[in-house]
């Protein structure tokens, strides 16, 4: 175990997509109990620096492991299939059509009821995509196919964020 260990190894977890969030949270806290700089305030600057490095590394791994999208992308990368979101935005036409339709609905949405309806719709798509990713990663181990689903999930999550932003504005 060292700072270069992968996130799963660091957290003592099996390298797979499906994870128990409660176990993950508990493990994170156990690790921070050991490594947090607060545990080393009375032990000098060198210990502080090392603690800081570990604590940062543990938080980084936790951020990635607890977020299904980031966790999936990370697993693909570990298995030699990087997502390359910036350079590769090619998506199937049918998917893009559906995205455009959602965007139109969002533009035309009027009031909380419309937004809630759209929100339900895209959350459903989000759930289905996550299930597909889990199947591809944990059962078929088809990382290339999983990459395509991860990219689709990125589009969906960005859309969900936009819907939430509209909902937030209504609340204030």
């Amino acid at each position, binding site marked *: 175990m060292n700072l270069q260990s992968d996130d799963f190894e660091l957290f003592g977890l099996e390298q797979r997509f499906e994870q128990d969030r409660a176990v993950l949270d508990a493990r994170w806290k156990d690790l921070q109990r050991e490594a947090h700089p607060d545990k080393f305030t009375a032990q000098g600057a060198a210990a502080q620096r090392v603690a800081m490095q570990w604590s*940062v590394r543990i938080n980084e791994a936790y951020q990635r492991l607890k977020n299904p999208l980031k966790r999936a992308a990370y697993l693909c990368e570990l298995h030699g299939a990087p997502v390359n979101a910036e350079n590769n935005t090619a998506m199937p036409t049918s998917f893009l059509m559906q995205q455009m339709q959602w965007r139109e609905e969002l533009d035309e949405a009027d009031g909380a009821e419309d937004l809630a309806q759209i929100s339900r719709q895209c959350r459903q798509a989000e759930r289905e995509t996550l299930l597909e990713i889990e199947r591809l990663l944990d059962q078929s181990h088809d990382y290339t196919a999983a990459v395509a689903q991860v990219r689709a999930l990125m589009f969906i999550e960005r859309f969900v964020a936009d819907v939430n932003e509209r909902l937030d504005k209504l609340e204030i």
Partner: protein
Amino acid sequence: MALLQISEPGQTPNPHERRIAIGIDLGTTHSLVASVRNGVSECLPDAQGRVILPSVVRYLEGGGRQIGDDAVAGGVGDPENTVASVKRFMGRSLKDVALAAKLPYQFVDHPGMLGIQTVQGEKSPVEVSAEILATLRYRAEDTFNADLFGAVITVPAYFDDAQRQATKDAAQLAGLNVLRLINEPTAAAIAYGLDNASEGTYAIYDLGGGTFDISILKLTQGVFEVVATGGDSALGGDDYDHALTDWVLAQTGTVVVNATDKAALKAAARACKEALTDAESATFFAPLSEAQINFDVKRTDFEATTQSLTARTLQAVRKALRDAKLAADEIKGVVMVGGSTRMPQIQNAVAQFFGQPPLTNLNPDEVVALGAAIQANQLAGNNPGGDLLLLDVIPLSLGIETMGGLAERIVLRNETIPTAKAQDFTTYIDGQTALALHVVQGERDLVADCRSLARFELRGIPPMAAGAARIRVTFTVDADGLLSVSAREQGSGVEAQIAVKPSYGLGDEQIARMLADSFNTAEADMQARAVTEARVDADRMVLATVSALAADGDLLDDAQRTDIDRLMQAVQAARTLDDAKAIEAITLALAKGTEAFAALRMNRGIRQALAGKNIATI
């Protein structure tokens, strides 16, 4: 003056000896110091038995200062030289201070942080705060008749980097060893003893004299995890006073211009507000230079004129709940912090919003200092079995200016600290050899709407075609919530690094000047103090190494062990010198020489944490 303990050469005091650690609540209207004694956290009184120190500093003509109650009493006829609510100016320039025109001070505008013109010349808010902190430090030293190991200072959770840095500078200026800056709502949560009594998700509603914070915390087995935080670092009880004053002035058709009258109105408003906590109506009485105001205020009038302020706090509460992805009814309890939460309209509004009466069984004035002291005690290592752990977050996103004046967010708000994030940038002109970076903090898309923290330049990039350079910018936020930024061109290795400090224009030199001005005027005193501090640091480092060796010395081979022993002996030999620089250098050598050992110990700790877990879960 406390006596220093000197040990025999070659021997160090018992590393498990109790260290004196204090918690300080540096508040807008008043400040407190607390410490854990016999296992109980308690606020320390001054010689007259007063626990609360008004956060007021008066600069006297011909030198000298009054601090606290003396400054309040002496300042009545001298408002220009009597600085109150200085916390509102920390890390702020004049344009940030909305109520500047209503205050009796002569401000001096500077790009990063304003100054206040007094009879003793211009004073920085950092200097004024340092006076308050030093007063509390002396109080603690007198109480224990010993030197302090260190202090935890609280800041509003919603303080940005400039405000935090200013607070830390003030503490250093006051001669305090800062163990940690912690957030006020988090400190309050600790004091409530929620750690042993309860598990679940709590909201801390903290309305102080000048700041408002809301934090949502999840508590599990001694771990205080902040899930989301929000607030307004320029909204507090002072604003309720001003709103009340404005309303009374409008009702009575009074116009006030001079500084003495402004100060009288402020005092009148506060007295009237406090009376309205228990009474349905109260008199607003202010003796002014021309006439006097004697006006009856009903509680309902007061509530109506300040309703928009209360609504602003609830807006921040809603936002924090959204960030935490929680509904109001998922909150198990609401803790009230800050003197301003005594106002009935606040208690009612919060009770209605959360659908339950808030918890108010601890004194809202003391709760933050009490919690800070508990954390200080733990950080000092006095409570080795303690399992208290704070996992706090950064309150505002950090980013960098990109083309077109847009802010690119790199560290998102509510991310657990410490954290580090890297982002790659490139050049946009052929042969470009320098890159200017502008670091900003805030949630808005335009740089102009965010707070500018620092600008720095990475120079010496080898000339390349546009877009060919890869410049990795790393943001590191430490456990105090303070940011440092480094940039590195990946191909050539050219590096630039800054602690985000020059932003508000207080450099190390200025701090050195302030130190000289305010505390030790004589050159000899300065040197003596530097030597004493260097020795304390050296002893601290040796003690830390001794206890590390006792715990994990088996990780070292003989050669490594000999090296460390030799470095420790060198420190012990050097500590008797009268040369601060020499002591510092040799202490630094010990710190460097034990770095690899520290890494080995950490690896063991992590492995043990995991091993324990695996056995438990199998």
